[in-house]
């Protein structure tokens, strides 16, 4: 058995490396000093583990093997191990590994490690190599994987500081996989990094949606990214998209307008009411009613009543909303749930 090798066949080396890195993660302080490796525990076949060099190359090869045929737990562990170890590795070594990688899954993992490093140390320039790869690689799968490497960090802020590439650029990519990765990334960042409160992320999503030639992707961005802190330009763009040719996109814009902040609520309400009379697509009108309720909550009753005569077929929909509003519920997610219970 090759104990010092770096390939996938080097199972023992990988296990020993885990011990070394575990000690590193447990003990490293501000100066980076760690406890000595304790190779006393027996391995899978009763042999004592031996310490192995803590090199990025070995770790990447072990990760590659885990991603190829390891259990989900091992994959998750190896991904986390790389991400944590990257906080203390030479950044140039990480960049070089990222630049040389050709396997999409490993590339994404290395991107996540680099981006986490950038987030931890406050060096947005570190993500330039990720953005460059996501824009410039000839292989669409690698461009998408590089972009997915930004998952979990404040990439909109970092990209603004680092270079100026935007998500609108990625939504113009010719490859569907890259465009889908950009949408996934923005939705994740909005929900998991900012919990829906970050205006620049909302604005980036609206701009990206406007730049997209794929109405389904644009609709997903508008439907899933919070507009709570969207700026006036974004609100104006959403109003424009109420007139889009695609009904799914119009419906998403209507729901997005329902989520804008108080400063823009009157603009949004007027646009929604106007569109309700002009639009003949049922799904758009249903979305407009939802948007109006979210904007006004209990105060939306008069406007709902005023729209009854526009489309008698939607009378039961308006009745359902009025019934839910009469419950005086305090949270939008619960209001939505009750509405769906009454009238899915």
């Amino acid at each position, binding site marked *: 058995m090759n104990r010092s090798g770096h390939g996938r066949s080097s*199972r*023992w080396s*990988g*296990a020993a490396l*885990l*011990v070394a*890195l*575990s000690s590193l*993660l*447990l003990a*490293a*302080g*501000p100066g980076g000093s760690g406890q000595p490796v304790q190779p006393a525990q027996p*391995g*899978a*076949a009763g042999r004592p583990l031996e310490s192995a060099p803590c090199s990025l190359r070995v770790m990447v090869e072990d990760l590659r093997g*885990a991603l190829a*045929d*390891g*259990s*989900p*737990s*091992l994959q*998750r*562990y190896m991904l*986390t*191990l790389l991400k*944590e170890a990257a906080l203390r590795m030479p950044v140039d070594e990480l960049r070089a590994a990222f630049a040389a990688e050709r396997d999409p899954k490993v590339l994404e993992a290395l991107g996540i490690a680099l981006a*986490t490093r950038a*987030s*931890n*140390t*406050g060096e947005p320039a570190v993500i330039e190599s990720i953005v460059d790869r996501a824009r410039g690689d000839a292989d669409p799968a690698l461009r998408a994987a590089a972009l997915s490497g930004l998952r*979990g*960090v*404040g990439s909109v*802020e970092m990209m603004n500081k680092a270079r100026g590439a935007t998500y609108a650029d990625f939504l113009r990519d010719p490859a569907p996989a890259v465009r889908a990765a950009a949408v996934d990334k923005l939705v994740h960042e909005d*929900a*998991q*990094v*900012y*919990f*829906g*409160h*970050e205006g620049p992320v909302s604005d980036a999503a609206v701009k990206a949606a406007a730049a997209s030639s794929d109405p389904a992707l644009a609709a997903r961005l508008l439907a899933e990214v919070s507009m709570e802190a969207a700026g006036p330009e974004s609100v104006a763009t959403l109003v424009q998209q109420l007139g889009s040719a695609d009904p799914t996109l119009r419906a998403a814009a209507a729901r997005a307008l329902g989520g804008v902040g108080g400063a823009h609520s009157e603009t949004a309400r007027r646009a929604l009411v106007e569109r309700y009379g002009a639009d003949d697509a049922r799904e758009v009108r249903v979305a407009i009613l939802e948007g109006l309720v979210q904007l006004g909550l209990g105060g939306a009753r008069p406007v709902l009543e005023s729209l009854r005569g526009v489309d008698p077929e939607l009378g039961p929909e308006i009745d359902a909303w009025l019934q839910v509003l009469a419950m005086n519920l305090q*949270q939008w*997610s619960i209001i939505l749930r009750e509405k769906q219970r009454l009238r899915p």
Partner: protein
Amino acid sequence: MAKTPTGVLPSRTFAITLLCAVAVALALPSSSTAATKTARGPICESTARVGSTTFYSCNGSTHTALDISNQSCSEWNHRGMILGSVKYNLFGGCAANCANPPPNPNCNGGAGNYYVVNGANGWEFRQLHFNPSVNTFTRTCDRCALGLVGATGHAFGAHSHSDNRQFGTRKSAWYTSVGTTCGTSGFCDRVVGKPTL
């Protein structure tokens, strides 16, 4: 050697068992609006310890938060505790302090210099009392240095106060659920809680 239910190779099976010895905490993904995050200690020094939890010094009046100290002041970084990138919103303006009692205990209502991470549905995570440094500004980051362990506001002795609140009410389950109590390590590689955000 028994195989795991997933049937992984023996060496990998063993590798998984090493998880027990590794302080790598995994953030739990959540499909709900509010999510559970992982919080680690705010001080990267092994002597950092929890001094107060639900009650001051664990037997005093109500506190419902974690106080963590390494008995130093304006020396060690006060780091963001949430594992993963989140936005730390700064509420600053208090002069650095290491004196006990503090000369300006009412600064920012007693919180001193502090950061707030705003979550969903009224949830928030706060870190209080730090002294300012070059790293003190509103930022989105993953366990970055936010300031120095200090004693601004109503702080008798330099420490990091952290709490998890919903609509202003402090909760305790985020740290009791992982067994954090007085004397628990507050080192930056140790999980001290699972706050909701």
